[in-house]
């Protein structure tokens, strides 16, 4: 029974399982026919050796890229939450910028949370970062005592469920060397070591932005209802801290920064994010680029285990040939470095051969004549 499948070992496992399912109840000969046909089609769909996939991918992006609108914003459900899309985002993605211009995290919630409006709201409120200036009315200096006095807004604090003792404890913990006291709604903050006046002023600015509650860097939080469940959008890529929040479904929650994903979930996940983000941009522009081109790009960017952009410092710097590297931005740097260490260029790739006007090793230029010649025949020819 299994022998018939072994005969067509080129068919991938998933397809094979599908065929097995579909051909149930067929007799052996017609099943073989099906397998033969699938095997043939599979071979046909394979890319031929010597196909210039890199250039074809570049052209597949380049042509629709000319029709792209430069900078587009997309609103994720709510108007105040905008997301850069369009060519800018695509460039940002493929250049592998460390942080996106509009970071966004899509928080999915666990069972028991995702349909409960009150619980969702509570989680959203706990995620949003609250700074000291958000819950206080006034920052003033008391120069006689050499301290800063902060008048807290009790109404605001009540709404956000923050107590004075919490504020004091958080401040003591986050800003060291401070003497923080609460005096009936007024914080008296004094540096333990006596500082200059400008130091005190700097401390005041620092205090204004001291985090009291929530996840660091989260400025906006918006819960959105999507098909019977609530999803929380927030403008951050601080996934690490969000995972710590209770009720967050770590298996589904994502962010649009592949670097964060690579750190937290591994390079394969980062590759997936690059693909998803690129597909999203292209779809949004009403364009159609085959996903395999995008997958190929993502593979090239991630195959070393770290994310490398398609830039002169990224994957292009890893080209073997000096001439190929020199032909793409900063040629002097590459030629100088190559000459210092006496680099050898074996002219194995495309661009070097174009420069020398030799047939490029692609397509019809790839196959070589292989023939064993007698030693003296070769010598005789040279003479």
């Amino acid at each position, binding site marked *: 029974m299994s022998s018939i499948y072994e005969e067509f070992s080129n068919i991938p496992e998933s397809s094979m399982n599908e065929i097995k399912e579909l051909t149930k109840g067929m007799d052996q000969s017609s099943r073989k026919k099906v397998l033969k046909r699938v095997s043939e089609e599979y071979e046909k769909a394979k890319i031929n050796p010597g196909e*210039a996939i890199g250039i074809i991918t570049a052209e597949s992006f380049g042509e629709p890229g000319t029709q792209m609108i430069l900078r587009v914003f997309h609103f994720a459900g709510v108007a105040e939450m905008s997301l850069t899309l369009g060519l800018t985002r695509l460039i940002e993605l493929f250049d592998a910028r460390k942080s996106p211009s509009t970071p966004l995290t899509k928080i999915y919630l666990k069972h028991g949370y995702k349909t409960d409006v009150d619980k969702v709201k509570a989680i959203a409120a706990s995620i949003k970062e609250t700074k000291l200036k958000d819950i206080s009315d006034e920052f003033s200096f008391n120069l006689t005592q050499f301290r800063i006095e902060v008048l807290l807004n009790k109404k605001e604090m009540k709404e956000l469920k923050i107590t004075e003792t919490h504020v004091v404890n958080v401040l003591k913990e986050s800003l060291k060397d401070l003497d923080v006291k609460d005096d009936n709604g007024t914080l008296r903050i004094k540096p333990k070591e006596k500082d200059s006046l400008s130091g005190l002023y700097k401390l005041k600015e620092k205090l204004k932005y001291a985090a009291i509650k929530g996840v660091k860097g989260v400025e906006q939080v918006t819960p959105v209802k999507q098909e019977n469940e609530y999803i929380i959008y927030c403008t951050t890529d601080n996934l690490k801290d969000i995972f710590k929040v209770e009720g967050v479904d770590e298996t589904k929650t994502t962010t649009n920064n592949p670097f964060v994903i690579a750190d937290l979930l591994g390079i394969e996940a980062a590759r997936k994010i690059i693909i998803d983000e690129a597909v999203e941009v292209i779809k949004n522009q009403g364009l159609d680029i085959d996903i395999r081109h995008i997958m190929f790009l993502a593979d090239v960017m991630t195959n070393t285990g770290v994310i490398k952009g398609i830039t002169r410092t990224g994957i292009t710097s890893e080209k073997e040939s000096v001439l190929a590297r020199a032909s793409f931005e900063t040629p002097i740097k590459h030629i100088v470095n190559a000459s210092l260490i006496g680099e050898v260029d074996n002219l194995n790739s*495309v661009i070097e051969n174009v420069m020398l*006007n030799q047939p*490029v*090793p692609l*397509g019809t230029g790839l196959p070589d004549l292989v023939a064993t010649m007698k030693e003296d025949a070769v010598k005789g020819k040279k003479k």
Partner: protein
Amino acid sequence: MFDVYLNEKFVGNVENIDGFVKDVKEKRRTSKFHPDMSIYHNEEFNEVYINTTKGRSIRLLVRVEDGKSLMTKECVDKLVNNEITWDSLIKEGILEYLDASEEENALVALDENELTKDHTHMEISSIAILGLLLSLIPYSNYGSSSRLIRGNKIQKQSLGLYSSNFHSRMDTDVSILHYPQRPLVKSFMHDVLNYDKHPAGQNVVIAIMSYKGYNMEDAIVVNKGSVQRGFARSTFFRPYLTEEMRYSGGLVDEISIPDKEVKGYKSETDYRLLEDDGIVYTGAKVNQEDVIIGKTSPPRFLGELEEFSVAASTRRETSTTVKYGENGIVDTIIITENEDGNKIVQVKMRDNRIAEIGDKFASRHGQKGVIGMLVPHEDMPFTASGITPDLIFSPHGIPSRMTISHLLEALAGKVSALKGLQVDSTTFDVYPEEKLRDELEKFGFKDNGTEIMYNGITGERYEVRIFVGNMYYLKLEHMVANKLHARAYGRIQLLTRQPVEGRGKGGGLRLGEMEKDCFIAHGASLLLKERFDSDRTVLPISEKSGLVAIHDIRKNKSTCPLYGENVEVNNVEISYAFKLLLDELKALCIYPKLELKSKY
């Protein structure tokens, strides 16, 4: 206290800003201040700006008070009867000049019907909001603005009678249209401009239909019979100029037939058209690269003098030749002197241009296109009354561009041709469409301008009625004869040995970076190599040093620049540009060593 600025400089403060502005304006209106001066009250910052500088564009408007124009019928009558002058109206404050900043404080009405109590000014005529060329477009209030702007631009490129003394002028790159006509559909502006004295187009019968696909993508099909009868013929003029320069040391240029000893002497046939004075004769038929003014110049560096004994042989050939790709007949020759007292020779060449496939034409509505096909008169479709259109315009050009004015012109043109009168279609004051339809019906035509037509080749009747009308068409200055270019071999650059660039020099057409990528994407490796073979060179490479060796053809011996003779040298075929790169690396003290390996 409000700040007052005079010509962007702070001059002082005023207490009552509105009173101050009003006062200044009043003084200007009563000629106490110059009418060019402007005053602008910035209401946002409560500052007053007074400007008297030059370079501000100012506009003349009629003043309005209490919703009534100060330009009364009385005034107009007096003006018509020459009792008062335009200037006196400005002096009296009936008309007023506003600059861009003062316009901010004004509310300008388009015409008298629009006036309200709030208005401060009114346009002299509603057409004044349009520019000169835009007001020449008939029915432009029925067109879309983007197309009108294009129509505007196109009119500047049209050929016509640009100047009646063109014979004695030496303008570069000009053409004169043969048999220019007054437009059947004109606007008020045509009269103002004396357009009848210098028209720039011709009236043609157009049919809006498709013709075998030869008018797709904005192309037009033109009746060959019309062209043979003189439609869209023009003469192209090209002047050439040479100056007999004087140099230091008493050396001078000489306009004459160059001596055979001269450096860079062409050939006797090249100079065949020159008369004894070294200049061509009028009426000579000249082709590209023919010499039309023979000239020799002294050597560029004095040092060259000593090398040769014969003085003539050191002179350089600097004759003027007909430009690449051009030919024609010598029209005018002018010999004169310039302000430095140097002799100047100007030769004007003329070329008759008959409309051909690729020449650009346009109507006045931004509807431009090139001739896609010239159809013999007998093959053109004809109407029931026997009219054959001069031009067939594609219907696909209409819906997306919404140039209704184009269609209305054709309709009005038809009425005009039937009536024998020009139709006035001044913007905002057009001859109404209903009237056009009524009149067409009276002449026995369908009121929508369509007619029954027959296929010119088979004689069959077309199932649909076809829109036929008369339009004013412009021949534009972009003619294929000035643009056509192809090259197989020719001049190359000295440095890279690649073909030179540009049509004027007979250059190549570059196969660029993206085209290269296309060849690679197709895997057409050897085709790519062949395309880039323009600077192919065979270099002897020394095996030992990896450098380019020196090959002596006479002795058939190669020498390595590092190890001398008796080294193994092999020939390698590469692009010259790469050899140049190697040389430049050597100049940077980098040793590019080529390691040769047998391919097989």
